[in-house]
């Protein structure tokens, strides 16, 4: 009897836990509400199945537990019942898969008007690169990396001359504008994860991965590395600030001024010599 009770309590308790749990996703700060919606659909379907199975088991244990004189029924199979159950399961699975694939298609299709920024992961810090006034990121290569060229920008690519590099500091993003995030690593596999954005992707050294999002809420959000990258993995933190356009442009101007100042500093220190093409 206590087995029946415990099965019922597990079913009911798990649902209750879900409802009252203070541990739930953080309020979303990007356009990926669809992902949350798909998760909700999945919770409904899987929750219903879980409760149904447990309650049915409890009923069976209650009604068919061994008592003197009780005998089991001999029934090898029921094609009809199994057929129906298979069909229902197929429908349930399709009901979760279809919205999921639809949203995935959306996820991998970057809108044409997205600006592109680059995030570079290294053991164990984040760096960011924004395209300058020309809106284009310059070419980079790992062989170009030196102490004063930490992200390996190509010196000969004009697009890269005005790129803004931010190391180990905050990334700012303007609210409401889609942004394609290019991800690069110079050493091992990392993953740029901001829980409020939902979107994330691993960063593979030797290639470039991407994801895109549109921030929808202002605030300061923590960046967590989400792929084990060595002992510094839990400390590979950063932050992203999403702000209104006015504030964002003020920040951007500040960054651009800093870049120009740095460039004139280095050119004053080292007069430009003709450089052979990379």
């Amino acid at each position, binding site marked *: 009897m206590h*087995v029946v009770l*415990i*099965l019922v309590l*597990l079913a009911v308790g*798990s649902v209750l836990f879900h409802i009252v749990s*203070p*541990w*739930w996703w953080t309020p979303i700060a990007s356009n*990926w509400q669809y*992902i949350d919606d*798909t998760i909700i659909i*999945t919770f409904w379907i899987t929750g219903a*199945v*879980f409760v149904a*199975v*447990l309650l049915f*088991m409890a009923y*069976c*244990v209650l009604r*068919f*537990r*061994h008592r003197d004189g009780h005998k*089991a*029924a*001999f029934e*090898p*199979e029921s094609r009809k019942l199994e057929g129906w*159950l*298979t069909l229902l*399961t197929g429908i349930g699975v399709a009901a979760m*898969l279809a919205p*999921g*694939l639809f949203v*995935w298609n959306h*996820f991998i299709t970057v809108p044409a008007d997205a600006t592109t920024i680059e995030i570079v992961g290294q053991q164990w810090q984040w760096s960011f690169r924004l395209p300058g006034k020309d809106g284009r990121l310059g070419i980079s290569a*790992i062989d170009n990396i030196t102490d004063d060229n930490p992200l390996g920008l190509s010196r000969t690519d004009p697009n890269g001359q005005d790129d803004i590099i931010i190391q180990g500091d905050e990334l700012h993003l303007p609210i409401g504008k889609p942004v394609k995030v290019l*991800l690069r690593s110079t*050493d*091992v*596999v990392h993953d740029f994860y901001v*829980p409020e954005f939902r*979107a*994330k*992707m*691993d960063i593979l*050294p*030797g290639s470039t*991965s991407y994801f895109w999002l549109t921030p929808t809420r202002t605030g*300061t*959000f*923590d960046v*967590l*590395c*989400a792929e*084990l990258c060595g*002992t*510094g*993995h*839990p400390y590979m*933190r950063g932050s992203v600030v999403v702000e209104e356009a006015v504030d964002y442009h003020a920040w951007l101007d500040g960054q651009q001024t800093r870049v120009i100042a740095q460039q004139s500093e280095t050119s004053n220190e080292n007069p430009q010599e003709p450089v052979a093409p990379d």
Partner: protein
Amino acid sequence: MVEIPLDAPSAVPPAEVADVELYHPRSWLTRYVFSQDAKVIAIQYSATALSIGLFALALSWLMRLQLAFPGLLSFIDANAYYQLITMHGMMMVVYVLTALFLGGFGNYLIPLMLGARDMVFPYANMLSFWLYFLAVIVLFASFLAPGGPTGAGWTLYPPQAITSGTPGLEWGIVLMMASLMIFIIGFTMGGLNYVVTVLQGRTRGMTLMRMPLTVWGIFTASVMALLAFPALFVGAVMMLFDRLLGTSFFMPAIIEQGTRLSYGGGSPILFQHLFWFFGHPEVYIVALPAFGIVSDLISVHARRNIFGYRMMVWAIIAIGALSFVVWAHHMYVSGMNPYFGFFFATTTLIIAIPTAIKVYNWVLTLWRGDIHLTVPMLFALAFIVTFVNGGLTGLFLGNVVVDVPLSDTMFVVAHFHMVMGVAPILVIFGAIYHWYPKITGRLLNGPLGQFHFWITFLGAYAIFFPMHYLGLMGVPRRYYEMGETVIYPQSAHDLNIFITLTALLVGAAQFAFVFNLIWSLSRGREAGGNPWRATTLEWQTPETPPPHGNWGKEQPVVYRWAYDYSVPGWPEDFIPQNQPPLAAEMAGRAPA
């Protein structure tokens, strides 16, 4: 009664061509150490695997203590923590679960359930255990090597596995790879035995469709293992080459702590493809034997045939085949070609269908059954609960876009522990309570078993169910300490403490099980040959424990399927498989 048509020769199992000479041991060494008797080998595998399991369990206590009380144990620094999680994971998945289900249960049950005297290649079988043992020694050697074991996670992703920043770079990773390679070679010898014995070693009358589902599960898992482990082998060889010989199979041009390494052009994602091509079938290699065993546990203890035996067989085969085309669902956010996501999400969710059918058939076996709430039955019920829970959370992760926020969070950790840790281990316990009387002639103590059961089941559920919600919140996995962020309420840290304390409690309860195993050897109630009144052949041996050769002078002949329970018209509620049919039965009538 249907007659088997004469034009279906392969429906007739081969009568033994020549009576295979059983190897007869002459010395203590060849009887108990280098034994070629599958039953002894089974016990060797099981004892080794269970011991490693207890060790890996203890490692998990250290991990949990660090997570709940960061810095409490000063000897667990970040290096040590990552070494702990790697060894815990690799030991549990490969050296405990795979070895126990296939080497332990497979060796003991396959010959007995098929009416065979032993496995078909006994010498290779003996070698397979000792290679496994050697692999274990090599693995443990990494604890003693300079630099300690590798801390790259059980998934061993390059480049981090072989660059600095990850512990075990010097020796740990090399020993891990060597150990895995030895394990795989040894396992191939064992796997050939399990598969060929099922194909060629069945006694007269034992067709495939008369085999119990335990054998179907272990058989299919063995076939899968034979085809999947080579992927890990190739990956390990290539990673060793990269580490020791400077090749760049997996290593792109990278800068390690300021120095440009001499690697270039390699692909880290190639390793991930190879690893998961092995890794996904591996989880089904662990699950399928559990599926088969639990079907038999429910059947016996509910005195009812497993519902829908044919569908159960087809589902096992379908799951085995499909498991080879879902591997990249572990790589949705790896940066691979995004269009692969569509394909693998579809195959992954399709594989849920045969799995669900099995769940329905288990509960439908309870329906209108005669349920005895013995300890094995309790574990079987608990398996259904935890497997359904863990399997359903898999549907979240399998749906590619939902996996994006959830991958690499505690949601994944909770999912795979529930579905691969808790559920199959509950089956292992249930199976040991069930078959212990056959192996030793005595029953395990019932009340102690109940105690062990309730704490293990409810405790494990309490550990891993709430953990999903930490993952939903965004807590990443493989963090040495959870740390502070804007999004973590203080209660999340409290939940960590609750999980740790519950884990320690559940861990302590396992000692009750170990005590029971040892105590019952001499003090357990005598069981007789068939205490559960089961139909399958292993319970019909002339002696218990079964002697060398299993059956005495003559192997049994099989006349019926494995699930003749509560057959109408019979005085007993079970009919052993080697019970010849009565004349009335042959004429299509129920016996008087």
